[in-house]
């Protein structure tokens, strides 16, 4: 069984925001709701790196654990979805989420009144009939059910953002990493493996 994941390659992400507008375009996401955004660190200095972030569809998702109405769930493909009809807009999932993925639109908007939670669906719609009008209005398009992957990744300008079965993404990323042939100068290496290696350099 496929296990759906996003993977963002920081060596390639150029902060072009293509993923952000692709998402807006595909789901007609209203102004102020950002299912996906690009985060940059060390802006403007050497070491600048960007990363596109949305719901990470965690395997052990904290939002599911904390939801008081128990409407967030994991599909068999590993996508974290929720039922807006049962959402009470409490924001608990937002506190729990390490990535700030849950969004709370104010007032009557395309994705529900009363500030129901809205977030990235991995372009997999929600608990309504596939491709139904209700599904689109509440959750956006269901690309997964059309045999397609999230548009943000499919349209990524440098193919930094990848989406799909985790094992297949690993293969793509491994091939790149091998070609780069980088060791400790790869971004994130020192954080992961410590300072002593830098000194050994």
């Amino acid at each position, binding site marked *: 069984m496929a296990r759906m994941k996003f993977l963002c390659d920081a060596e390639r992400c*150029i902060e072009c925001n293509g993923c952000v507008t692709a998402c807006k375009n595909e789901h007609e996401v209203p102004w102020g709701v950002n299912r996906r955004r690009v985060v940059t660190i060390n*802006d*403007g200095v050497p070491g600048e790196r960007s990363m596109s972030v949305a719901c990470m569809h965690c395997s052990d998702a904290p939002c599911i654990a904390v939801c008081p109405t128990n409407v967030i769930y994991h599909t068999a493909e590993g996508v974290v979805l929720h039922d807006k*009809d049962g959402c009470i807009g409490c924001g608990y999932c937002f506190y729990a989420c390490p990535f700030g993925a849950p969004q709370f639109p104010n007032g009557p908007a395309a994705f529900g009144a009363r500030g129901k939670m809205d977030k990235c669906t991995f372009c997999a719609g929600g608990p309504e009939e596939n491709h139904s009008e209700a599904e*689109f209005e509440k959750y956006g398009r269901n690309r997964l059910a059309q*045999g397609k992957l999230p548009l943000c990744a499919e349209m990524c300008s440098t193919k930094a953002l990848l989406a799909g079965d985790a094992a297949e993404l690993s293969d793509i990323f491994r091939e790149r990493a091998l070609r780069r042939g980088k060791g400790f100068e790869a971004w994130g290496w020192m954080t992961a493996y410590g300072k002593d290696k830098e000194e050994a350099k």
Partner: protein
Amino acid sequence: MLIKKNAAPGNAFRQLASPVARHLGETMDRRAFLRRSGLGAGAGVLATQLPYNLIGSADAASPAAAPATGGGEGEEVVRRTVCTHCSVGCAIDAVVRNGVWVRQEPVFDSPLNLGAHCAKGASVREHGHGEHRLKYPMKLVDGKYQKISWEQAINEVGDRLLKIREESGPDAVYWIGSSKHSNEQAYLMRKFVSFFGTNNMDHQARICHSTTVAGVANTWGYGAMTNSYNDMQNARAMLFIGSNAAEAHPVSLLHILHAKETGAKMIVVDPRFTRTAAKADYYARIRSGTDIPFIWGMLYHIFENGWEDREYIRQRVYGLDKVREEVMKWTPDKVQEVTGIAEEQVYTIAETLAKNKPSTVVWCMGQTQHTVGNGNVRAMCILQLVLGNVGVSGGGTNIFRGHDNVQGATDVGPNPDSLPGYYGLAAGSWQHWCRVWGVDYEWVKGRYASEELMTKSGITVSRWIDGVLENPADIDQPGGNLRAVVYWGHAPNSQTRGAEMVEAMKKLDTLVVIDPYPSATASMAAMVRKDGVYLLPAATQFETSGTATASNRSLQWREKVIEPLFESKPDQTIMYAFAKKFGFADELVKNIKLVKDKQGWDEPEPEDILREINRGTWTIGYTGQSPERLKLHMQNMHTFDVKTLRANGGPCDGDYFGLPWPCYGNPELKHPGTPNLYDTSKHVMEGGGNFRANFGVEKDGVSLLAEDGSASKGAELQMGYPEFDDVLLKKLGWWDELSDAEKAAAEGRNWKTDLSGGIMRVAMQNHGMHPFGNAKARALVWNFPDPVPLHREPIYSPRPDLVDKYPTHEDKMKFWRLPTLYKTLQDKVRDISKEYPLIMTSGRLVEYEGGGEETRSNPWLAELQQEMFAEVNPKDANDAGFRNGDYIWVESPTKAKLKVRAQVTQRVAPGTVFLPFHFSGWWQGRDMLEYYPEGAAPIVRGEAVNTATTYGYDSVTMMQETKTTLCRVAKA
């Protein structure tokens, strides 16, 4: 709330929307439709969208087979188009249902973008919403825009322009065309304005890459990117100077980062630590406007260490000795003093380029928009010639153009100094085009005020304001000042000296703006005028069809996605309507079929216009790209190799994608296009070539032709040779290889004017020879003010000491019809850096494009950049006493003041202030909202940097100086 699916329409908004929609008409209807467009994964969508490699085989998916007006009820059709923002040429599959553009899908098959998009490309579907567009013709009455009918608009505008033409001559009207036009529209515009009787026309290329086009063409023949984005994957080192590709051409980074991943070294030299620099292996910070000393500094090390390619230089380069003399004056200490780059950095970069060949260079506005722009670009060409990198896959000068069709509009569009195809304005050029157009040369001559004005270059878009404001006695045209300006797809805030521009707008008799988003011009004009301004709604490129030439010279055919929204009309239709009003409609479309649109207007058919371009544009090989061949390419994208761009099998077998020009001969010759210019390793019929013999065969007793052994593969004469004409063909004994009909057409003509294409065919197909000859590239361009590029300080320089050492040019009295200041102004402002100590420079943001009215009207983009800002170094911010996020005033020596947010960052060095150039809609601290036509103001408005930019122009092309001027900053 929602329990059952059929309870869904309980949404209050929609219950309201439906009845309202019936009354409000189309706009509301479309919005409501878009909201519901989630359904409909009908069989049609799947057939076309799912197995992407099958597109073209399924009926509904076949773009050619699809009707032009949407499918039946609920049926979805896919139309293949191309992004209209930058020059990468990213393909888009537009999904249309009931005539509404409901979705946008990636085209993984495209060899150019492989489905990838940046923020702009991923949001082009918003054009189908278009809520901030101009919806109908409008007219300024008592300082307010009022709706008028198309009929009234054409009549009133036409009468006003005809009256001015009558009173002051045709040269009193200035036409600003567009790099956003398709090739067909741009070409028709050149023809249209010619028939109006003036060369006073121009478009964005003037202020974008005019110095590149002139400098590069004068070096080796053609003024274009030599290789392609894709070919950069073959490079082993890449130097970006004055290019922020990560923001300006984001999808190019797909190829660039791929190359980097496979071992290429990436170097960025820029005054800013750009997002491109963040991806580079090596970055050096240069003082803005000192490119030539830096390049000479690199060449100094190359010559010192013997890294030059001596054999290549001997065979293929003319005049390098003189360059070498100048280069050796630039010792490392001098280079450091002027550029701020240390010797070891310059050495490292030079060594990297010299030892990792093929190496390529990339430049953009950072090199071109200077008073020494033509010198900057020629210095880059020389660097590549010295390293033997030109005409080599993985090498070349990869000049990234700006707009989606700026290359095409430069090639065949409204240029003040040339007819389509760089034919120039000589009588012979006019006669050539009159034959193609099927009109009488004498008639065209009669349309002009005089034969002299017919053959004299017009005023440039960078200077139209001086055409209005200058003393009429000093303007080099008999009619004197410009009285009317037509902005046809061009932003006003992209030209410098905005403060003077409003004065010019005030003085005009008539201002006409034809644009989907005319609002920047409209608001500036309404700020200073009460009447005499007309706004006409043009359709976007998604509402018509035609071709666009990407930066790599590939042409792509865009299908019409939707019918024009609101009352807008495609540009070619508007041109034809005005031609009728002006009385030359029949001449304009002599060879071009007219088709009726839904409202009964006549539209010149884009296919036919392209065929006319094919029949006439021999110089640069726009002759082989027939609409049929291009459409076939669009449907068979998957058959093209991504690295070479060549089709391997399939219906386009052997062709390069989009038939990158030159694609010589008529379409029947089946020339495959030229992926990399001047590449001698390929046969000319396989896209090979060599440098062009365009500057005579000898200069001062020295031959300009290439040395033996340097001709392209398979050429019968492996030596230098001149360009082909009837005489040469006879001398070589090849004349009889022409058919009788070809002989008749070719007699007394050369390869550029032989409409039969016979000379070209015989030279290329039969003998493997290049029609434009085989010469050396010129390191020494003797016809330019600086034959060897010289460093000259910007007019507004922060270094008075260096102004004395490296002064600018002498003033020019008659230059593109206008007096132009250099030295007198530089002397006058020599010490102005005491008052204005910071360098002011400008550039792009990824979310916006050009003047930005279009992209700032797109909510998906506008949300990402909501305010105009200035990047200021922490040191300068602390000195001036403001913090990150404060409003500040940026004031330039023109005294114009910009109120912007401070972004305090080390991205810029102390002493440099960077401002993005996409904003407009604020005027020196004031929101101009009240001056906009109702409902057509963009979502995000801000100060235009060019309100404050200063005087300064390139000495060859009149390119404006935007990248180096001065300013001071203070807390607002």
